[in-house]
């Protein structure tokens, strides 16, 4: 239901983060996330960073599959 984009934080200033997705930058609200740092990856939706992402790609699924089998 929500186009989410994983993007890299490149700059932080109070309540706002500039995120970068393939070179497209936009400043988004980071008010919902604490301790954000440049270099972190976040999930962005409708102009706010809704979640910090632990892995920058979907490789964690490998582990899930391992557990499953």
């Amino acid at each position, binding site marked *: 239901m929500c*186009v989410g984009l994983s993007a890299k934080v490149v700059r932080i200033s109070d309540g706002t983060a500039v995120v970068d997705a*393939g070179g*497209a930058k*936009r400043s988004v609200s980071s008010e919902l996330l604490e301790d954000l740092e440049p270099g972190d990856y976040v999930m962005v939706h409708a102009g706010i960073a809704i979640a910090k992402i632990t892995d920058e790609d979907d490789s964690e699924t490998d582990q899930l599959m391992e557990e499953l089998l």
Partner: protein
Amino acid sequence: MNEYVDNEARKAKLVGKTVTMAHGAGGHQTSELIDMIFKAHFDNPDLTADDAAVLTPPIGKMAVSTDGFIVSPAFYPGGNIGKLSICGTVNDLSCMGAKPLYLTCAFVIEEGFPMEKLEEIAEAMEKTAKEAGVRIVSGDTKVAGKGQVDGVFITTTGIGEITDGVEVAGNLAKPGDAIIVTGDIGRHGCTILLAREDFGIDADVTSDCAPLWGNVKAVMDATHELHVIRDATRGGVGTVLYEIAGQSQVGIRLDASKIPVAPEVRGVCGMLGLEPLYLACEGRLVIMAPKEQAQTIVDALKVCPYSQDAAIIGEVTEEQPGKVVMLTEIGTQALLPQPGGELLPRIC
């Protein structure tokens, strides 16, 4: 040298001036505007001040194409409406295998439009026409009242000469054809979207707008075995492919991973929920030709300006005529959604 001085003087006269209703009234001031800007840039032996230009017709078959340009904003990274208005028509002629010979241009200008902007537009037109080897032969200038038009609209019409032995058309695609694009896609549409709307997105994307007769000629020089050449303008590559699939009653299979898209364009599309395949290009061709010719064509393109990134992105098939199928990243095949309607950024 002297011309340089005159040109500086001419430009100096434009500073701070705007286009007025009087410039559109057809009298003295209309001539003044034409002389000051349009003649200064477009002058050539075929350009007429009369009702119509008198020209030597092309030999063989003649191609004729017209397009109106209403891009907003009129200036954007990588070009302006002037450059666009030449490229658009030059490319439409080129897509018929026709060498662009003559061009007409009709301006509709909003009262109050800055002369210096008009100068910039005319300058871009001159430069692009020269590059494309086409002559501007006749023009028209109308001034619309404030608010009756937004800035400036340009309509160009081109006449080209069809090189003997080449026949390309949207209904000539054949199963087994390779599908080639001449570079990364969606840049023009992406640029305009960012320049027009206030989405707060900052991306180093410039329009791909370019005159492509040289590229078509290079391809035709490399092989005459060509079926379709089409510039992927409004609606982008996706729309053009659906059109061709319909006109030729063939299926089209694209390999998603082969389609060149600049990372910035992909990033913007990610944010706005858009598909690059539906973003307009103004300097990209879709070419369909027998598979055997594909590499020759790509090689010919790679040495031309504007097409160094040419790539084979798919093939024409017999199955699912009228449809475009994507080979996805997981190896499945799925229909490319049919394009339709206005391009709207979405959140869901």
